[in-house]
């Protein structure tokens, strides 16, 4: 995987396939702490203890459910390569939370990539699942919660695939503004 945003897509896909109805995706970037954290938490069935211990072994997986497999091993390798690692917390019935930590400035850290495309693809691709996305850069953050946006009575549905491109564009613009430190002005007016 070339971008970390593809790992996010993969983790979320794992969660949905395992039966999650709510997936919370959090990205935190801090240059001050030289740290990039990616967390994907779900309300799925969770993992039993013995499976949790062997999670990063790519060859120990129940391929039928695809709860784990190559994806997590690839993420763990990407994190370790960038001076970090992966932690998985899970218990049967209590969901699963995967946290990957990277050194933000590490030369081998893969680029974050197009997180907006990942989030938009998830929302449109899994209309029955709710997604909460928070992206923090230093002290500022943007957020999206499909539970708050599901107002079918008002004629808009965030999972309408025709709106996905617009949602991706909104996220991309807000992320750019976030990366600039939230400054308004000429740049912020740029209407691409």
């Amino acid at each position, binding site marked *: 995987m070339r971008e970390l945003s593809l790992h996010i897509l993969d983790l979320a896909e794992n969660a949905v396939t395992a039966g999650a109805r709510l997936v919370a995706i959090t990205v935190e970037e801090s240059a001050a702490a030289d740290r990039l954290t990616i967390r994907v938490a779900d309300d799925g069935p969770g993992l039993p203890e013995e499976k949790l211990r062997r999670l990063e072994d790519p060859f120990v997986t129940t391929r039928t459910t695809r709860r784990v497999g190559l994806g997590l091993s690839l993420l763990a390798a990407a994190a370790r390569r960038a001076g970090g690692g992966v932690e998985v917390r899970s218990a049967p019935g209590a969901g699963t939370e995967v946290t990957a930590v990277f050194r933000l400035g590490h030369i081998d850290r893969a680029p974050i990539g197009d997180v907006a495309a990942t989030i938009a693809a998830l929302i*449109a691709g899994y209309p029955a699942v709710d997604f909460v996305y928070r992206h923090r850069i230093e002290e500022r953050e*943007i957020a999206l919660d499909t539970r708050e946006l599901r107002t079918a009575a008002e004629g808009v549905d965030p999972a309408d695939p025709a709106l996905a491109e617009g949602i991706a564009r909104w996220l991309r613009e807000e992320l750019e503004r976030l990366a600039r430190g939230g400054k308004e002005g000429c740049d912020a007016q740029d209407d691409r």
Partner: protein
Amino acid sequence: MPKMTVDDLKRIKERTLQATALRHGEARVKITVHMGTCGIAAGARAVMTALMEEMAEAGRTDIRVVTSGCMGMCSSEPNVTVEVLGEEPIVYQHMDANRMRQVFRRHVLLGEVQSDFALAKM
């Protein structure tokens, strides 16, 4: 803190060229983008993004887009399955953004199966 609101979503809908009604009832076409680890690594997200752009332009309410996991044909990913009501599902292989646009415009909208990219009839 900027958080997407229902009003933001409504503005997005207004700006979408062809405003679409809510999708309910039976869909005439179902398009499945396979997004297992194998599909994602092979470029399935770009395929999905192209499909979403086409959907925004087409403004059709009888087409459903879904994603699913690996279907066991990892070497031919990204795979896309097109199911037209009353016809055999077609699995397309080695998809990219351009192939997706072609399949959408010719197969989904016009009913012409793009056999050059087809892996199999299911």
